């Protein structure tokens, strides 16, 4: 029985989120040359970019596991059937 296929390209919210995370990753929207306040020992903008980068990593990692499911069931079932683990 075919489960519902999940293909990332078909979901606009994925690409909008990814686009926004990339767009705001570079600090073009902050005043040039500014560095204060310092948070955790680094300028505020460094922290913002770092956090956005980490969110991007986590988001993409999560997408791979949860929004991509095309032939997995078919393959895994077949593998089990043939004992070819």
């Amino acid at each position, binding site marked *: 029985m075919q489960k519902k296929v999940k293909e990332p390209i078909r979901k606009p919210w994925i690409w909008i989120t990814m686009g926004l995370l990339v767009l705001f990753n570079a600090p073009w929207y902050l005043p040039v040359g500014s560095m204060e306040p310092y948070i955790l020992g680094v300028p505020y903008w460094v922290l913002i*970019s770092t956090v956005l980068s980490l969110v991007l990593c986590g988001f993409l990692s999560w997408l791979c596991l949860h929004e991509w499911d095309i032939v997995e069931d078919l393959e895994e079932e*077949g593998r089990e059937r043939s004992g070819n683990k």
Partner: protein
Amino acid sequence: MNLTFSGADGIIILVVYAVIMLVVGYLAGRGKKLNESLNDYYLAGKNLGIIALFFTLYATQYSGNTVVGYAPNAYREGFSWLQSIPFMTIIVGVYLMFAPRLYAISKRANFITPTDWVTYRFRNKAVTILAIILMLWGLGNYLLEQLVAIGQAASGLTGGTIPYEYAVIGFVFVMLTYEWLGGMKAVAFTDVMQGIVLMVGIIVLLIGALTLTGGGISSLTSDIATTAPEKIGVPDSITSVNWLSMILLVGFGAAIYPHAVQRIYSSQSERTLKRSLSRIALMPPITTGFVLIIGIIGIQLFPDLDTAASEQLVGLMANEVAAINGFYYWMMVILFGGIVAAIVSTADSALLSFSSMVSNDIYGKYINPDAPEKKKVKVGKFAGIGVIALLLWIAWNPPGTLYQIFVLKFELLVQVFPAFVLGLYWKRLAAVPVFWGMLTGAIIAAAMTLTGNSTLLGVHGGVIGLAANFFICTVGSLLIPASQAKQDEAEERSSMKLEEIKYNEKTGSLG
């Protein structure tokens, strides 16, 4: 780079690495008839498991340059080099645009090279040949860069005891031998060792650098704010635009590298592929992120290096770290060996991919389509040796003013992207506009680079070429659409046809 901490010990570690690579290559190919099938030799029988696939993706994306080249970038540009984290991460995002569907189609249609998909989708000789030229050119230059880097790193590690040329020839010999013996399997298995060494080396170098600074992160940043405020303040808008452009260029370019695409084909299963990519997405912070911190620490430890001197930053730092105690000494020797190994691991993937395209695309499609697979594999193997010989000759006899044409890599490769990815989802995409889009994009990118204007207002020539390419492909296909018959054909080929896919219990794959 002359490292005073090394020499004889460096030679020992390089020899150890070389022997391990040869043994792994031998074991990977032993007792198997890899040479009789393109699938077995170039794609490890499409049966790579999660560990091998993860490390081969890692070793392909991260090279020795990630350490030796990126730390100086961080040193010169300061915190704006934070961009190295997202531009490596986004590669996975670009994979998500096409890998899920391409994986399913590749298993059904038994693809060997990226060109196979382009041929299968467009059935157009001009598009196929242009795609082959762009990919081989980009890949060849990428390989050239890696070969030069092997020599520099190895001669640097041994303090010049092993001269540059001998280092290159020695490692090229090792690489060709294990690749000859074990094909993709050898490449992927050696990548496991090479990847682990690189990861460990980066972490130890970071710990050593943090030890050298003594103070915490606050004293580091306040020190930089006084001595080099431009490296710690919000960068100017050109730098920010360039940062975004870099994310686009590397993301689209690195995901479409022929060897990157072939790793999709090589995966044992969809589950293995998505789990590997899911982990790859988490690697940039602990790879390029750590290298960024190493470069930033360099600003405090070695202020006022000019551009040329800053290129030696990792060597300078490794010397200092090695002087801390015996443990750090040996870890730095291992790190530098690891850098050489990481460059070899990137070069071997590119070389294997190059051979496969000669075997399957040029020889197999146009010269002798009826040749048995064994013969095609053999042609690819010899072509690999041929291209290495040619690249070494170019490296040692740089052709003066035209040297710039050997710099073009991402800029050209990325132009295959619209054909490759739009073709998966849009049946109206027609061959003629794809051809002209690809050609125009490549010419724009090449012309900008060759005339010394690699960026325009911070945007890379490759990205501008890609935008023109997308525009021509889409507008052209809307204005002069392919015939209905061709569109139906394209739809049929790019559909996943799940209802027809069956698991083949004999081969353990889909068919």
